[in-house]
């Protein structure tokens, strides 16, 4: 209840804390020697200290560890002291048999902590500094104990009994004195607990098994028919798929055995929550993990934990938010919606880390954050219109409550929405509340509005010093600059100065600005999580074999400082910042891809893949892999690309609409086109089309690509008029939704269609239009390829145009050879050879290498690509040249190759037919 929030006295004394107190007492027993009694070396002493520190901070679970867990860990830590430590701990615990024992125990504890004036401490006397971490912990324990009622003390006593008994039942080697108050019910209770826990474990195990099975069986998901998967399978793959299989099974396919997991927990005496601070840390880490792993995060196991947490702490509302995230990333719309509303209803948007609402500052709650989240949720589920409506409301409410931070984030979200999802018009949606920002009104186009929004959001973020938001805004600005020509919003006077080109420099500038700000980032994020995460990592490493290896050599070497500290050193940069830096590299890669520099794109993608995959979300990481694999396919041929794809599939979950699946379809389509498997190509193309307009939302990019590929397939099947019709409607769509980069390639395709249909004259204007698009968007590689097409067009106009064609071609060669893929180079070479051959002034016998050399190059490259048609053409030309030169042997060789390719082209269709007739 916001009206009546309880004071946060989150620290409750539990058996686990009592045993920590006992250990702290051992660690800091007042003695005169530098290494107190049980310890034989300083490092041993320190190790216990670090261990205790880690126990108070780690946030790897919601529940406090049981006694036997502590005993096992102590065994790792203590080395030779192990027996002494555990004996001492257990005997001390079991000696607490009456409330008075507890009183005395906590009185002793007070003695360990130094007084307030202990600034001048004896060097050799170990006394805990009251302001150190452990000192604070001890003081809190003492305070919490003093606040307990007598009933509370009785409960504590009972719980200590249960706590010891559980440990005893699991490791019987430790003889514990029986507690005298153990009644019938106590025994039955602990038995009952164990039963319950076993049940849970069994369930989780079952879930994992089922998941493993699921991943093993379903290798290729959802839409594709079986044959396609076999098609992929038949490519030889040299990677070893077994290596990671088990790990993957654990992470992937979260849908399994959901029904029986929904059973309720029975919380009981032996289960205690950790401190509030630790639980919040745990939840934060889990939230990060959900976001990072997306749908491969385990749904049910985590849901189980949340359920338990909710039962144990019903007023901890963050649980609902985590539930929302969990269902969001598993595409459960209704549950996500329900939990989002529930979270904000309870928390009013002001339940943060420290759980204490800032007193007095805002009694109205921060429901605008709820709107922001809801908007993002709709965006995630692909309801752009609703998202926009909600975000509009968020803008209005944040203005009303003058919550500038939220406003800045909302604006960023809206601009993100506008840039990601194609709106042909926003009229009627983006209305009134924006007028203060867009004083020009709503007569602007979507792009102009987006630009204004971006600028506004950037300015706000800068003035509010939200560094991450500034960086993110710079990135989206870069994205905008990349694909949009900037026009003045209001044009007065002569328009002479308008420059209709995108500006790569500004893209670069924005990217740099974003990066610059991030590098300035100095640990502003909460220290809590990193601290806790560090402790968690430290504790986890305890179980690793490496830990015991180090521990075995133990006290022999004093200066052997703790190696854990080095191997688990957490980076000081928060994950979210790393993500932003990473995505700036991703943007660079994309920018270079569009501008047409393959090596630079590859370098940036590689940087991302090596440095940022740990911090990035799995979808971003998948995107980088996709880019790299595409690069491989274009430059090295399909064999290598499919081998790499295999690896990527191992690494990422192949669910529907994942980038990896799309990539697979793309590669299959291209290969089918090249090999001449037109039916297969069409089938794959249809699959892509289905993915593009799934139930959730229409993906404009994918839709464009699917119909582009459709047109290409039709072209390959020599159905020119249909291909032209498809391409034409595609162009109309691109124009409507302002997809200008795509327009360029559609125009180029149109030119090609007309060329192949023998209408070179009609094709020319298209090629020229495409060229001008390429120029204004700085699409250098596409421009080179348009130039190539233009040259081909000229060439097909007759032999008197060969000069023009050749000069065009030579102009484009530097880029084609430097950045173009196998296909483009091959085509260029063949065209060059054809130019020479059709030039009446050129004689083969004079200078055979001028034509033979490019043809050889072309044939090599096209063979690698398995592009039978063009390869056959190259060999055909070679055979003719050899014939003219009189080199009969070589002629036969070329002719044989020609025949092979033609046969392959025809055969493939015959072979594939029965397979695809299903």
């Amino acid at each position: 209840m916001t009206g009546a929030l309880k004071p946060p006295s989150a620290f409750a004394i539990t058996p686990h804390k009592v045993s920590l107190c006992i250990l702290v007492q051992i660690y800091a027993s007042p003695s005169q020697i530098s290494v107190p009694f049980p310890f034989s070396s300083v490092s041993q002493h320190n190790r216990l200290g670090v261990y205790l520190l880690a126990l108070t901070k780690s946030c790897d679970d919601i529940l406090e560890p049981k006694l036997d867990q502590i005993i096992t860990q102590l065994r790792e830590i203590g080395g030779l002291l192990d027996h002494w430590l555990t004996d001492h701990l257990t005997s001390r615990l079991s000696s607490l048999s009456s409330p008075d024992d507890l009183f005395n125990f906590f009185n002793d504890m007070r003695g360990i902590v130094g007084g307030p004036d202990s600034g001048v401490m004896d060097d050799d006397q170990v006394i805990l500094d009251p302001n150190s971490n452990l000192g604070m912990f001890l003081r809190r324990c003492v305070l919490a104990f003093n606040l307990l009622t007598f009933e509370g003390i009785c409960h504590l006593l009972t719980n200590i009994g249960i706590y010891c008994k559980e440990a005893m039942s699991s490791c019987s080697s430790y003889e514990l004195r029986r507690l005298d108050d153990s009644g019938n019910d106590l025994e039955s209770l602990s038995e009952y607990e164990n039963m319950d826990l076993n049940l849970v474990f069994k369930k989780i195990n079952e879930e994992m098994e089922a998941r493993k099975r699921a991943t093993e069986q379903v290798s290729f998901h959802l839409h594709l028919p079986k044959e396609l998967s076999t098609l992929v399978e038949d490519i030889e793959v040299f990677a070893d798929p077994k290596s990671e299989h088990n790990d993957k099974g654990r992470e992937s396919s979260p849908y399994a055995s959901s029904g029986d997991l929904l059973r309720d927990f029975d919380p009981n005496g032996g289960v205690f929550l950790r401190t509030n601070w630790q639980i919040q840390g745990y939840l934060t880490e889990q939230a990060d993990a959900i976001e990072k792993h997306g749908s491969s995060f385990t749904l049910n196991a985590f849901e189980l934990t949340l359920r338990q947490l909710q039962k144990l702490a019903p007023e901890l509302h963050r649980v609902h938010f985590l539930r929302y995230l969990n269902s969001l990333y598993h595409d459960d719309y209704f549950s996500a919606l329900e939990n989002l509303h529930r979270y904000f209803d309870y928390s009013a948007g002001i339940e943060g880390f420290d759980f204490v609402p800032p007193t007095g500052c805002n009694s109205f709650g921060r429901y605008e954050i709820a709107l922001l989240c809801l908007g993002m949720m709709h965006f995630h589920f692909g309801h752009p219109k609703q998202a926009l409506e909600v975000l509009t409301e968020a803008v209005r409410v944040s203005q009303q409550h003058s919550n500038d931070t939220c406003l800045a984030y909302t604006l960023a979200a809206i601009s993100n929405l506008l840039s990601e999802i194609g709106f042909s018009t926003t009229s009627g949606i983006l209305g009134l509340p924006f007028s203060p920002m867009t004083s020009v009104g709503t007569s602007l186009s979507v792009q102009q509005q987006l630009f204004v929004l971006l600028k506004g959001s950037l300015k706000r973020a800068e003035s509010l010093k939200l560094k991450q938001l500034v960086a993110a805004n710079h990135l989206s600005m870069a994205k905008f600059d990349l694909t949009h020509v900037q026009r003045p919003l209001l044009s007065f006077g002569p328009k002479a100065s308008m420059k209709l080109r995108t500006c790569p420099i500004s893209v670069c500038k924005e990217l740099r600005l974003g990066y610059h700000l991030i590098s300035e980032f100095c640990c502003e994020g909460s220290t809590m999580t990193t601290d806790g995460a560090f402790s968690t990592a430290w504790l986890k490493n305890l179980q690793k074999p490496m830990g015991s290896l180090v521990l075995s050599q133990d006290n022999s070497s004093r200066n052997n400082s703790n190696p854990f500290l080095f191997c688990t050193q957490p980076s000081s940069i928060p994950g979210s910042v790393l993500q932003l830096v990473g995505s700036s590299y991703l943007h660079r890669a994309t920018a270079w891809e569009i501008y047409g520099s393959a090596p630079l794109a590859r370098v940036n993608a590689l940087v991302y893949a090596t440095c940022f995959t740990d911090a990035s979300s799995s979808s971003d990481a998948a995107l980088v892999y996709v880019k790299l694999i595409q690069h491989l396919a274009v430059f090295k041929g399909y064999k290598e690309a499919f081998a790499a794809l295999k690896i990527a599939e191992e690494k990422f979950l192949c669910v529907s609409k994942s980038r990896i699946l799309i990539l697979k379809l793309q590669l299959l389509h291209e290969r089918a086109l090249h090999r001449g498997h037109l039916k297969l190509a069409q089938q794959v193309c249809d699959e892509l089309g289905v993915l593009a307009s799934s139930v959730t939302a229409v993906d404009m990019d994918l839709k464009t690509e699917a119909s582009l590929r459709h047109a290409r397939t039709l072209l390959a099947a020599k159905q020119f008029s249909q291909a032209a019709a498809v391409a034409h409607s595609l162009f109309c769509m691109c124009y409507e939704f302002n997809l200008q980069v795509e327009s360029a390639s559609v125009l180029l395709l149109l030119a090609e269609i007309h060329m192949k249909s023998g209408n070179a004259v009609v094709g020319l204007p298209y090629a020229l239009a495409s060229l001008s698009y390429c120029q204004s968007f700085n699409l250098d590689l596409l421009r080179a390829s348009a130039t190539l097409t233009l040259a081909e067009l000229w060439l097909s106009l007759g032999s008197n145009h060969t000069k023009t064609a050749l000069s065009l071609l030579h102009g484009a060669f530097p880029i084609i050879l430097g950045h173009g893929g196998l296909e483009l180079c091959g085509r260029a070479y063949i065209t060059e050879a054809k130019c020479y051959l059709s030039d009446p002034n050129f004689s083969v016998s004079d200078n055979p290498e001028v034509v033979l050399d490019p043809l050889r190059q072309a044939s090599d490259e096209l063979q690698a690509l398995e592009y039978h048609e063009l390869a056959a053409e190259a060999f055909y030309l070679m055979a003719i040249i050899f014939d003219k030169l009189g080199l009969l042997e070589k002629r036969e060789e070329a002719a044989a190759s020609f025949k092979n390719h033609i046969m392959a082209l025809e055969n493939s269709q015959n072979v594939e037919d029965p397979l695809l007739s299903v």
Partner: protein
Amino acid sequence: MSSKESCRSELRTAIRQLSDRCLYSASKWAAEQLVGIEQDPTKFTPSNTRFQRGSSSIRRRFRTNEITSTPPTGVAYVSTPVMEEDEVIHGDFYLLAKSYFDCREYRRAAHVLRDQTGKKSVFLRCYALYLAGEKRKEEEMIELEGPLGKSDAVNRELVSLERELSTLCKNNMIDPFGLYLYGLVLKEKGNENLACKVLVESVNSYPWNWSAWSELQSLCTTVDILNSLNLSNHWMKEFFLASVYQELRMHNESLVKYENLQGNFTFSNYIQAQIAKARYSLREFEQVEVIFEDLLRNDPYRVEDMDTYSNVLYTKECFSALSYLAHRVIMTDKYRPESCCIIGNYYSLKGQHEKSVMYFRRALKLNKNYLSAWTLMGHEYVEMKNTPAAVDAYRRAVDINPRDYRAWYGLGQAYEMMGMPHYALHYFRKSVFFQPIDSRLWIAMAQCYESEQLHMLEEAIKCYKRAANCNDTEAIALHRLAKLHRELGHPEEAAFYYKKDLERMEAEEREGPNIVEALMFLATHYKAQKRFEEAEVYCTRLLDYAGPERETAKNLLRGMRIAQSGFPSMDVEHFHS
């Protein structure tokens, strides 16, 4: 008549058996019904029927449909044999245990019976242990209250009880009472399916234990579960069904059942109160008030269900009656959640919202899952403009019962108040989903759509249409529909709704600016349509009203005259005659 007689004898035995087993609330219920059966007036002197004054009008109404609802059943109506099992010595122990039990010393009672093996002794021992566990649980709940909410205390006896009872059940050494307890334990442990089965077995072999029926009822959360139960016929089943229907919001079905039952149990206060509650859900406040008045006359110290009565008084704004009721219940039992709720209602009516909240809080302290108190407290917070607290209170209500449409509606209102109409829509949608027949909800949703921020008029029209189809007592919907259609430029639809609204206002003999507006629109509309006769009718009616419309109407008439005849102007008065 014989069925009445048999009911009576059954109940008499049952009451003895139930109270012998310390199942007090069940025996209380049974006794209430026993007295509720109408006596044969010939046999009894008026002094005997003192408690059964059949004077009220409602009772007389139901006299007519004298349906003997007791169906022929497979259950043998033998009066259950008395004290068959335990020998005399053990009987002594039993008596001691029962005395301890009556003094609420449960563990002592259980201890006395530790070696007894008779079914009755076993039941009492287990029941005492169960109650001891429950008592301890309640105490622990307060002791263990953590900063993040209540730590879930559990009844620590459940495990051993379940083990023992299941063994007994397996060996067929269990009586219906034991089965009831077993079902209770299973339900607490969350094993609802088995609990259902066991409880069904219990009520089939011993139908007079109302506690078993109510446990079963709380497990029937959907109609499907209800239909899947294999219950043998008995008149007690009718009570059960009526109560389940009420919980499942099938108020009409429930009402039919209760009215049938009233044939035999004419004077049952219980049935009367249930009928009142059902009618309250159907918003028939007048009748509810009469029933409750009657009920209070017969049973002046009743606190149960009086919160419903206070709600009625609240809606009817009966200050003094509500204060009288509050006074009465507080004298009877101050620490009942119902009492606190009634006082809260009173303060709310007086506009003293802080005090009202205090009493609702107290009610919730006494019963954390008291649904209507959460909702009403939400209303108070809304009045106090403390929207976050209101949202919180409403949300707790819907988390206790997701079908509580009032709380969903409250949530929607709260968000609308904060200027978040789009966000509020989600909640309004929820509320109309659970209560699609309430026009107020539809109207609220429509107004949300109409708000200037959203301005989604098409959707608003759809909502108003739904509202108009439910009985919209305040007649907002028709008028808004007409207006919206006019604004959107649909004159035909606008005319249709104006006409309907007009008819309705005439039927209810209402006056006001709406009539003038409707007449005005219709007159101009029909004139524009060149349907002069109709236009003239409306114009003439407009002449009865003063104000500028009268002049406009005159002008319209004049204009029509000209258009119709081509003649120059004619005096209106002349035409009128």
